[in-house]
């Protein structure tokens, strides 16, 4: 059972840490937060050069075909470095679903571009009413008057990477009642993207589809396995997002330890106060429990237990990330409440992560329902 990065993954991770440290100071993060685009195209091209954009994809589309451990390693370092580029949106979410699609005409054309850094995608799946459930979809794909064309209608919210994407994949209910996913150009008629800057600086978009007309071969799936594949893709993405969160948590703990050792109050470093010592211990415990559940989920990727362990992991990162974020701010006092230090930026990143892709509440309900299902199955 693998419980830590293997040698190859570790080397890769160390390389990335150095890369992020070199390219990404907190100043750089702040500047990108406030920029029009919200990320750096130059960084994106460097990702392509480093091969980061092709990691999970097969070699025939220009990828490296390595396992999720490498994606976790990237995400940990991106979380630790407050990286803002839409990596997870493009590579893990949209790219991940595309790579599993039946429609190889699309994936064989698009993935090489994605890997080369010439194409950005996003995945529009979440709706206000879905509250984290990817299968609870109101958007529709109905037959248009013209040939086999389809009309997409509906609304998707907080679509990560929407403002930078060239094309998007949207989930919608087809006329037969089954879920499917469709590829659409972001400049299609009837498609309205309102760009959003999330609290942590990440860019997203609110997308409205008003009779967006697409051809039938824009459908990613043909045999009704869209739902399962979407679910699987999201589970993989959650694994990677959790690694991002863990990187942020680790860094918050490190910053807090440093601050407590140097900050003086009442004539002594605040690290000498027992209450704060125990708080730091609890922050470390929160990090370590999360790390254990991260590896526990990684181990069973591809098996029937994966969804359950990912849900546990996401619920854990929701509460642990909230705890570590809040306590890091508290330990830093007033200065932790400002833009002057990076502490607040990590806190906000963890806050956003908690609410994205099914918050703690959703994951706990998902787990309880699975348990009930197990009981029914057993009876």
């Amino acid at each position, binding site marked *: 059972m693998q419980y830590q990065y293997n040698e190859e993954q570790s080397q890769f991770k160390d390389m990335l840490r150095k890369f992020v440290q070199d390219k990404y100071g907190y100043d750089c993060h702040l500047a990108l937060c406030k920029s029009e685009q919200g990320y750096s195209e130059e960084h994106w091209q460097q990702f392509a050069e480093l091969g980061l954009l092709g990691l999970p994809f097969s070699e025939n589309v220009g990828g490296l075909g390595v396992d999720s451990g490498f994606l976790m390693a990237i995400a940990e370092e991106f979380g630790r470095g407050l990286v803002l580029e839409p990596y997870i949106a493009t590579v893990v979410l949209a790219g991940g679903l595309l790579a599993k699609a039946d429609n190889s005409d699309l994936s064989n054309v698009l993935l090489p571009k994605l890997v080369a850094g010439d194409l950005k995608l996003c995945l529009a799946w979440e709706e*206000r*009413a879905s509250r984290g459930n990817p299968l609870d979809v109101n958007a529709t794909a109905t037959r248009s008057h013209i040939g086999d064309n389809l009309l997409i209608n509906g609304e998707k919210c907080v679509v990560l990477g929407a403002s930078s994407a060239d094309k998007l994949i949207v989930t919608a209910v087809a006329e037969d009642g089954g879920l499917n996913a469709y590829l659409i150009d972001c400049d299609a008629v009837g498609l309205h993207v309102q760009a959003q800057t999330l609290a942590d600086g990440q860019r997203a978009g609110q997308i409205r589809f008003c009779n967006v007309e697409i051809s039938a071969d824009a459908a990613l799936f043909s045999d009704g396995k869209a739902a399962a594949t979407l679910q699987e893709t999201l589970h993989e993405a959650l694994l990677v997002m959790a690694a991002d969160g863990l990187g942020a948590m680790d860094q918050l703990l490190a910053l807090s330890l440093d601050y407590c050792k140097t900050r003086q109050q009442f004539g002594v470093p605040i690290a000498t106060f027992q209450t704060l010592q125990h708080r730091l211990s609890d922050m470390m415990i929160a990090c370590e429990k999360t790390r254990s559940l991260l590896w526990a989920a990684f181990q069973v990727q591809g098996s029937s237990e994966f969804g359950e362990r990912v849900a546990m992991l996401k619920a854990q990162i929701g509460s642990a990330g909230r705890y570590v974020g809040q306590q890091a701010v508290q330990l830093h006092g007033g200065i932790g409440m400002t833009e002057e230090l990076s502490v607040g930026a990590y806190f*906000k990143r963890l806050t956003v992560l908690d609410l994205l892709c099914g918050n703690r*509440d959703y994951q706990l309900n998902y787990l309880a329902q699975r348990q009930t299902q197990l009981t029914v199955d057993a009876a």
Partner: protein
Amino acid sequence: MLIEDQHSVEFRAEIRAFLDVAPSEEILEAGRKTTSVFAPFKETMAWHKILFRQGWVAPTWPLEYGGTGWTVEQRYIFAEECNRRGVPPLLPQNLQMVGPAVLGFGTQEQKEEFLPGMLSGEDFWCQGYSEPGAGSDLAALKCRADSDGDDYILNGSKTWTTYGHHANKMFALVRTSSAGKPQAGITFLLLDMNFPGIEVRPIVGLDGCPEQCEVFFSDVRVPKRNRIGEENKGWNVAKYVLEFERGGSSFGAWLVPALEKLRARSSLALDDSGRSVADDVHIQRRLTELEIDVRAVEHTEKRVNANLKHGENPGPMASLLKIISSEVMQKFSELQLDIVGLDALPLQTAALAVGSDIAGFGEESDMLVMPYYLNTRAASIYAGSNEVQRSLLAKAILAS
């Protein structure tokens, strides 16, 4: 409110009638767009002036200096009605911080010079207490005032000065001596923000807005007649101010209607099917648990207020109230975040400005949720961190 006597009923009606007409649209917008304990400056000061003209601006002040003569219960009713109407809470600096200092320790001349402007809202006073190296440990402050004839010469800096960039006056604790215990050499001074040598630098908070400031002093000349109380005895003045407001808190008056609004928000339809977040029994459960905490704060506050009348000193209960109200406020902000969910994620600073013509995503009230959550983390830090309050509380109960 259950068995309210006739006198209270009439009083409440009078307040309500006034609140129905007095605040302008902008003032009500500022009330809605309050994302921390400090409401938007301009409109809040406009409201301050309206209340001043009505004679209701300073319920806690002595009647002869512009107070209202209301009982503790009436003050609570006033607070309840203000919260229900949604007017912005007044900024506490003039009326609850510097005012009491001048009332308690000022000379007759100082009272005549400074109190009218505080009361009317002509002046806005900011606080110069904390320093980069002296937060929860105020006794460690270093900002220095050297005697020079009839003046002090001020050098150093202050931080966490709320709305320092809006203020025309400042009250500050400065070091006039380094002999004896750290608390012993501190003096309480009043400053004009336009004294030469003062520089203000706003600090951007987690919500992207400047609310706090750093204030730098280089050879700022302050007349000694601006000193409140004796030289080196400023600590006593600051302590007096802290105790002044004790027992008059009305945090529950804010929490109870806020919880009602949150319940209403949780019942909004998510889509055409009419589903709402309130259908989730776990959200219901958290609302119920929060209500118990809210009621505990409300009734602890009322209990302390009621027993004060009987001549008791709140003692450690002041620390207790600080802890439980800040923590319930934080719990409230978290539940609000979880209920609003994705709609809370975009940070919409521009749309949140009072009078902004920028349309935001979603409901106006949803835009407030993230800034409020972020800003509310400060509640356990400011005014004596909750760690300091818990130590004070322990000291009190271990001594008894």
